[in-house]
């Protein structure tokens, strides 16, 4: 840049670069394109590492649980150490298998008791790279028939909805994100009002008039009005109610542990769904087998594998009792 003093060059460069990014922001807002091409490239470049990292961490955790964590006990006595190590290793293996089996059994039971609802298990492989949004990345994408706006749940409750789909991965906007929202209603009074995120762990229920009777501890469930989630899926429990103007300020603790998601279920349909309330309530209980009780699924298979084995079925009333352990048969509403 002739004529510009050397010490000012960087200031001009700064101004230029910031201006370019402001234009980029403006373009995205105007065209609503969200810079998809750049995102596809970046996500495509990073997701293999995230998948590999996921496998690596899983492997490390297993190795840590099964071997290194036991090494400290080995110094007391050689003979006892061997016996102790073997026993503890077996116990640890069984415990971790039981924990994983519980989780998988919960997903499997949920899937079996809602066989009329096409769904797919998926693993969480990454989260949002910044605090400006609350999203997670799943290891399933358009190749697994996932589409934008599909609902994502766990047996405990609603998680969020798919907002971006790539070939092998997809991004889910969590309920806690500021831009998130779900059609909801109070379980007792059936009063309907949307629930949204506030960028913090608790959710907010809007538009409940001060005259309406609402109690702390009351459950909030999906209303089905958003055409994404079936009715009566648990969203959360009311933890705080304050009078406001003109509406109450209601805060809700999500039923699903959104900060510790490892496996989720994607509802593979964009059609309005109906779920049997009884079945849903039953499956929301802890794993049917419980620790130490045999489960029907191999502990080594992942949740995604488990659910993926069941091909997406068309929505049809199919009252099939899954097993003695499974919660309840799905009945048409």
């Amino acid at each position, binding site marked *: 840049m002739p004529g510009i003093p050397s010490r000012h060059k960087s200031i001009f460069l700064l101004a230029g670069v910031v201006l370019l990014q402001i234009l980029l922001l*403006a373009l995205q807002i105007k065209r609503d394109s969200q810079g998809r091409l750049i995102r596809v490239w970046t996500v495509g470049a990073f997701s293999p590492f995230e998948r590999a990292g996921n496998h690596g961490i899983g492997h490390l955790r297993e190795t840590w649980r099964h071997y290194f964590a036991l090494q400290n006990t080995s110094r007391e006595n050689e003979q006892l150490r061997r016996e102790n190590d073997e026993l503890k290793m077996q116990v640890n293996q069984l415990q971790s298998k039981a924990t994983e089996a519980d989780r998988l059994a919960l997903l499997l039971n949920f899937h079996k008791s809602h066989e009329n609802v096409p769904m797919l298990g998926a693993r969480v492989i990454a989260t949002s790279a910044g605090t400006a949004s609350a999203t997670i990345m799943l290891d399933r994408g358009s190749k697994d028939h996932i589409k934008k706006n599909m609902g994502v749940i766990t047996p405990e409750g609603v998680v969020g909805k798919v907002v971006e789909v790539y070939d092998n991965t997809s991004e889910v906007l969590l309920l806690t994100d500021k831009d998130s929202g779900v059609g909801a209603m109070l379980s007792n009074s059936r009063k309907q009002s949307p629930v949204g995120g506030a960028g913090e762990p608790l959710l907010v229920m809007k538009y409940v008039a001060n005259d309406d009777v609402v109690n702390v501890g009351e459950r909030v469930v999906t209303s089905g009005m958003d055409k994404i989630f079936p009715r009566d899926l648990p969203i959360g429990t009311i933890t705080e109610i304050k009078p406001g103007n003109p509406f109450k300020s209601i805060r809700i603790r999500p039923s699903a542990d959104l900060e510790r998601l490892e496996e989720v279920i994607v509802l593979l349909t964009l059609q309005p769904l109906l779920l049997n309330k009884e079945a849903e309530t039953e499956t929301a209980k802890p794993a049917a087998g419980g620790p130490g009780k045999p489960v029907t699924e191999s502990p080594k298979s992942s949740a995604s594998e488990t659910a993926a084995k069941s091909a997406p079925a068309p929505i049809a009333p199919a009252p099939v009792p899954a097993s003695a352990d499974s919660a309840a048969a799905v009945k048409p509403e």
Partner: protein
Amino acid sequence: MNDAFDIRNMESHIEVHKFRGGAIVGATLLALMFQAFVPVYFAKAAMIDLPLLITIYFGLSRRNPSTGLLLGMVIGLLQDSLSGPTVPLGLYGIAKTVIGYLASSIGARLDTEHPAARFALTIIFFGLHQGIVLLTRRILLAQSSVWFTMHLAAAAVVNAIVAVFLFALLDHLRKS
């Protein structure tokens, strides 16, 4: 990008550090991976903004404002890309561009090798970064955001503590 350069017309006693080949790219990619991956297992880790710390560190060490702001821009845009479609490209990009520029400008004038200086600078830069993100959201995106929360204050301190140890670790990537 990793070659040494002179800062002319500036204090000659400030040392400009050069790094081993691939150190900047490697550290940047690792930071972004960490940011997207680790919170899956440790939710609290989300409060650590590793891409920001990397921007600050290389800005302070390289001490070239042009390099600093370009590195900040690249890191910020990559972070935007990995933050989901609700975060427009440029939100973190603008903030980290400015931080990269300021860090390298300050690095060229002050000795920032002492842990206490690094701690204080990280808190200041973290606050500035949040301020720029917030201003961008309010002015350019018309989104509401709160100026200050205890969580942000705690995050600033946590990031500064992490920065002290991380920067010491990254010092090993310098060419002696």
